[in-house]
């Protein structure tokens, strides 16, 4: 047992920290359509970076340009400070885990993993490939052909085949897309721990917001070829800056209104006759038209007779739909003048409100966030 683990540790790629990746004003136009629009982005070395967005947002095109499989129309891409824009893919220190895995069907699993090392004429390519297969716990399948493996196993071979080259940047193109839910969760944990271990720069493209948030250090939300917002998953979730981010990353209730009072650190907004307060440092604009947002889980659902803090924002409405999920009850509440809001209350033993009941929803002003008054409140809601 001890011996195996020693061998394993030695054979593993050293925690080299990868390299910074920098994209400057990168644009990619296909004949009638701009896939990536003037994108500037820096990914520090050793980061697990997720490019998150709906299909067609330009995230895969961005990845393919970093890999050298696509040429940007304009702009530069540099890795570790070196301009690689004109370099063909086979000369870039970048490896990709393809969505379809793209394993060579005529080669054994071992030959697949050793392929990159052999091209670089690394001396002990077979030994290193074996070590990489050990890392993904597939050493016993080294002699098989890819077709003889399950989807999850193929996925791990694809990962080993890319990782074994210790690229400056590892690109993952929806690598878990073809796996079922359970395997997906398992692979998410494995991928994250491998990244932490090898310390390489990972760029992970996905349309699954949960996947992006659980794995990445930094998430960039892309929409229509541009980055809408970028930051740590928690920052993005707690303080979305655009309606698209608010709706695509989790759910939000967005209510358009206009600022009526300046309260020093906060502003009060009139939304269809309701006075809602939001802190200035969480609001994009402090005067004129504004959109007040709040996450469903930040709201409390109360009976009309329940007490609530006088400083809290409060809305009253009629329950349109209540669905009990066990952990919580999810509500759709119709508020006159505003529309339908989503909320839920955790199951603490209280009796859930029923359809047709009038309820009060309250939340602390600090949970509010303010978007630009011109924001389209439904943007990103149906994006997948």
């Amino acid at each position: 047992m001890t011996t195996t683990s020693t061998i394993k540790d030695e054979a593993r790629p050293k925690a080299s920290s990868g390299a910074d990746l920098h994209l400057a004003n990168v644009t990619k136009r296909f004949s009638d359509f701009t896939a990536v629009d003037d994108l500037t982005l820096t990914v520090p070395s050793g980061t697990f970076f997720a490019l998150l967005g709906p299909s067609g947002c330009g995230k895969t095109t961005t990845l393919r340009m970093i890999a050298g499989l696509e040429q940007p129309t304009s702009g530069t891409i540099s890795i570790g400070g070196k301009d690689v824009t004109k370099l063909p893919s086979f000369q870039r220190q970048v490896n990709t885990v393809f969505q379809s895995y793209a394993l060579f069907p005529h080669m054994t699993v071992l030959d697949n993993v050793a392929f990159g090392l052999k091209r670089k004429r690394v001396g002990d390519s077979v030994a290193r490939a074996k070590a990489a297969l050990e890392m993904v716990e597939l050493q016993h399948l080294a002699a098989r052909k890819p077709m003889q493996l399950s989807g999850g196993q193929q996925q791990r071979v694809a990962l080993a085949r890319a990782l074994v080259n210790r690229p400056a940047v590892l690109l993952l193109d929806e690598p878990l897309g073809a796996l079922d839910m359970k395997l997906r969760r398992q692979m998410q944990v494995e991928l994250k721990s491998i990244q932490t271990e090898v310390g390489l720069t990972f760029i992970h493209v996905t349309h699954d917001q949960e996947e992006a948030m659980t794995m990445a250090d930094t998430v960039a939300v892309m929409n229509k070829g541009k980055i809408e917002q970028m930051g740590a998953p928690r920052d993005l979730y707690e303080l979305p800056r655009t309606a698209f981010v608010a709706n695509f990353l989790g759910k939000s209730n967005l209510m358009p209104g206009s600022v009526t009072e300046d309260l020093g650190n906060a502003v009060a907004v009139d939304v269809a006759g309701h006075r809602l307060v939001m802190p200035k440092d969480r609001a994009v604009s402090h005067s004129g038209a504004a959109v007040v947002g709040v996450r469903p889980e930040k709201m409390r659902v109360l009976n009309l007779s329940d007490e609530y803090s006088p400083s809290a924002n409060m809305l009253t409405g009629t329950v349109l739909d209540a669905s009990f999920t066990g952990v919580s009850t999810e509500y759709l509440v119709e508020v006159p003048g505003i529309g339908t809001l989503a909320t839920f209350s955790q199951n603490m033993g209280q009796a859930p409100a029923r359809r047709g009941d009038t309820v009060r929803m309250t939340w602390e002003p600090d949970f509010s966030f303010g978007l630009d008054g011109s924001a389209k409140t439904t943007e990103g809601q149906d994006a997948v």
Partner: protein
Amino acid sequence: MTSTVERSRRRKNRGPQDLRSEEELVAERRKGRVGLYLIIPGMAVLALFFAAPVMVLLGMSLYARPPGAEIGEFVPALEFGNYATVVGAYWEVFLRSFLFALIATVAALLIGYPMAYLVAVRLRGRQLMQGILLVLLIAPFFSSFILRTQAWKQILSDEGPVVTVLRAIAILPADGHLTATAFAVVCGLTYNFLPFMMLPIYANLDRLDTNLLEASGDLYASPLTTFFKVTLPLSMPGVFAGTLLTFIPAAGDYVNAALLGNNRDTAMIGQIIDSRFFKVVDYPGASALSFILMVLILALVMIYIKRFGTKELF
């Protein structure tokens, strides 16, 4: 339609005793005679149009010519000497036939593969271009085989463009010819059997997953390495089929040698069989040659298959 309904009804009616699984039922059906009946038509065609003629040929090749018989008069016998006679007389022609066929096969591969690659891989997704090119490549083969071969006589004639250019750049001496040479015969063979090489390779490359080429490039393989490590190995079944489909008919061909060759040093075995049969009226000799040709091709193909084919690719 009805059968499905019936089958499901039958399955319902199987009752509690019949607990066999679907697989077991299939296995039982396999053991039955249905399969046997189904192959009867195919076997009958083979027996009538292949096995019987071969037996006739074999019998004929052993006929003997009685002393003083008229031309074309033979009697049934077991004259194995016929084989020795034709092998002694024509072993060089056999050798030449296989050599010509081999050169034509290699040439067709070198020409056909890039064409197939262009249409199937490079023009992937551009269906109009693919369609136009495929039609252009195949359309000539809707016209007569003889006519097309005859056309090569014009192309390679002393006044034609090929000879003119080759003479100008001194590859061909000033009084050199291309017509009635081995070169012309091989050109004809290559041209005439090119579609048999190209189409199987095209069909194979058409299914090539271009993601694999990107993956190869991503893993530091230059385009040339990618071709030799990924594209070519994956297209080997097509190459294999193409080479067989080219070599076999080319080895037995006589039209190209007859129209584009001379009567000194370009004769192919098909030509000899033709003249033995129709001109010399030596039926046993022609039959013996045909039989030897068949056996030799079969042997060569078997060696080829053993060496390169049937290897489990995936």
